[in-house]
């Protein structure tokens, strides 16, 4: 037994090596790395699916695929990007950085952590397996309802729906376990002297995210379980003939679905201010205001869900309530935007890749937020609902606001995680290609959406042809630019210029006091915060 040892060094441990190391690891850095790697792979998988869609939409008419396959690609693209790319990326950062930022030796529940990760690969397989099965004549492919599972279509659909339901169950269990772990870590494992109001902003963003996940993921699990029993066990939750109501599914789904938007964004709102203060070389502006705004947004996010289906039919008082409460979210969000900009104000700024992404993120996410206000307007929404305007809007919030934010975080922390600097020149190329092609992909979609092009349809009227062609070409540039990102990460992990401990001149916080890369076991002696 080696339990009496006082100080550990790497060689002292008898960890398994090779595959067994990764299967059995309970180390937060290993698990964080696995989450981030999984997320990157699924980002490429989900991205290739949507390139199929953009290829089909390159010109009017049906060229490459039948409409059913088109619908399957759209639904699985969304589920993969949301549950298998964005959420695991945020959880990966949480695993890597939260213990380092709060001076804890590891996450609070390390075994739960391992389990949480290893539920992800099976659920990714469940989501995509129906495509393969269909090739062998089993079933008719993946879920073709879009990611929202609306009945009655999802009750009538093929085995793809069942696969997706079980995938959602597994993904839900995984994120609930991850969230419980993060809440316990943040409550119990902070270094002595680090009060809640001294926590780094990233920890705050994640604490609220974790509570939202624990409160809403079970509602989604319940809703898809009802769908499953409606499909196979003769219940009529959503079957009007049996006394059920398909609209009720929309309420249940979006009761989860709207907070989910903030679940994807809150971790990013946490670390972007940290990046801004680092590269502006002055302290974050309005720490308290930001924390309270995050809480306000988290709380409001669970009471606004019905704005996703204004057109499904609702009495006027309900429409007005959901419109005003949705618009109220823009107030705390405006406070956040103000704080982000004020953090940079008069700072001595430099524009390394993480900062480029962070600043670009503020502008693009701002466009996403403003177009959301337009959609929240009941009168205007009747025109915009279910059009490409909606598609463009939520890609400004989730691709720019989510994924480009995550990319800022990757470039910011990669030198810390690997101990090597990434290629700055390639990073800048990646930023500019991504930002420009992203805008060229989605700005035309605002226009065709306003002109009436509906989403989730493989064919379109001739007047939308030019804009769709621009959008498709830009989407391919956007997709291919991500290969630069992958190349940069892989070469950085393998070697390169050694990073210093602080990495960035203006970087503050406990994670930058450790070596780059940090030792396998860090903060075994907790630091004391004054």
């Amino acid at each position: 037994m080696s339990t009496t040892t006082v100080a550990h060094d790497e060689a002292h441990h008898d960890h398994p090596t090779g595959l067994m190391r990764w299967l059995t690891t309970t180390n937060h850095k290993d698990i964080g790395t696995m989450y981030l790697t999984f997320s990157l792979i699924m980002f490429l998988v989900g991205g290739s699916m949507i390139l199929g869609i953009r290829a089909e939409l390159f010109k009017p008419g049906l060229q490459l695929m039948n409409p059913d396959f088109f619908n399957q690609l759209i639904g699985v693209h969304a589920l993969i990007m949301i549950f298998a790319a964005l959420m695991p990326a945020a959880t990966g950062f949480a695993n890597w950085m939260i213990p380092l930022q709060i001076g804890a030796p590891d996450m609070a529940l390390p075994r739960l952590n391992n389990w949480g990760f290893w539920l992800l690969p099976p659920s990714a397989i469940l989501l995509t397996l129906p495509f393969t099965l269909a090739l062998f004549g089993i079933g008719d492919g993946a879920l073709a309802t879009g990611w929202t599972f609306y009945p009655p279509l999802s009750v009538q659909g093929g085995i793809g729906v069942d696969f997706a339901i079980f995938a959602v169950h597994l993904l839900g269990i995984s994120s609930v376990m991850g969230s419980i772990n993060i809440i316990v870590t943040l409550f119990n494992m902070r270094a002595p002297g680090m009060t809640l109001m001294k926590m780094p902003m990233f920890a705050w963003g994640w604490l609220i995210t974790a509570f939202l996940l624990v409160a809403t993921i079970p509602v989604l699990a319940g809703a898809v379980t009802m769908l499953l029993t409606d499909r196979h066990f003769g219940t009529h939750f959503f079957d009007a003939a049996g006394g059920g109501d398909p609209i009720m599914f929309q309420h249940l789904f979006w009761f989860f679905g709207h907070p989910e938007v903030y679940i994807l964004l809150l971790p990013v709102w946490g670390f972007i201010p940290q990046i801004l203060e680092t590269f502006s070389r002055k302290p974050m502006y309005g720490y308290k205001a930001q924390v309270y705004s995050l809480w306000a947004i988290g709380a409001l996010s669970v009471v606004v869900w019905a704005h996703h289906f204004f057109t499904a039919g609702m009495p006027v008082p309900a429409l007005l309530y959901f419109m005003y409460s949705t618009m109220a979210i823009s107030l705390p969000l405006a406070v956040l935007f103000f704080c982000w900009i004020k953090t940079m104000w008069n700072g001595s700024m430099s524009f390394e890749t993480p900062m480029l992404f962070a600043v670009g993120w503020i502008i693009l996410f701002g466009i996403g937020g403003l177009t959301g206000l337009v959609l929240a307007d009941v009168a205007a929404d009747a025109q915009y609902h279910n059009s490409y305007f909606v598609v463009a809007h939520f890609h400004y919030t989730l691709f720019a606001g989510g994924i480009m934010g995550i990319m800022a975080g990757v470039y910011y922390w990669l030198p810390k995680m690997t101990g090597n600097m990434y290629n700055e020149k390639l990073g800048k190329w990646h930023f500019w290609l991504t930002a420009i092609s992203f805008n060229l992909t989605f700005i035309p979609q605002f226009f065709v959406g306003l002109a009436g092009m509906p989403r989730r349809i493989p064919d379109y009227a001739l007047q939308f042809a030019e804009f769709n062609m621009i959008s498709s070409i830009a989407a391919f540039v956007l997709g291919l630019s991500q290969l630069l990102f992958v190349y940069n990460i892989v070469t950085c992990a393998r070697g390169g210029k050694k990073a210093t401990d602080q990495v960035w001149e203006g970087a503050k916080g406990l994670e930058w006091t450790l070596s780059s890369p940090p030792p396998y076991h860090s903060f075994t002696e907790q630091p004391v915060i004054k």
Partner: protein
Amino acid sequence: MVLNVHVYGMESVKEPAELSAIEQKNLKNKRLGLKLLWLVAGSLLFAFALVPLYDVLCTLTGLNGKTSNTAEMMSKAKLDSSRSVTVQFTSNVMPGLGWNFYPKQPSITLHPGQIETVVFIAKNITNQVVVGQAVPSVTPGIASANLKKIECFCFVRQALQPGEEKEMPLRFFVSPELPADVKEMTLSYSFFPAVEEDK
């Protein structure tokens, strides 16, 4: 004091008082984790509790155009001849039901409290006995609670013989509590293939 391997195995052998600081922390973490599981269970229960809540809310407020599917007493109708309201009828046949189904009259105009009978016509165009269930919906939603049915083919499931055509009556009134700004309302019936009851 640093001790972070094999602590899990040691937990069971020691009394809580003898636990080291790290072991106590682990125990504390587990307890908070288990407490949070109650929160998860609570949200799951909440999801299922929403189903009856949703139904109650819809019947009480008429949200979603749900109307009561039970017979009203005729004596509740008190005539208000100072105003009149037009009730339009529409019909749908859901996929899987081989019927023609339509209202005999597109609309009627009546005073609140006035009892009227209207007829819907259904025809089975298949060569089998088919059972259907009509589901009503009223627009605007705020008026749905004011449409009172005394007798309706939608109260029970309807069976039609192969090729049979049947007149299906609906006896109803609009209650005098109808909001003053509602001048027109639409009653829609969707006929669904009847769901098999448990035997």
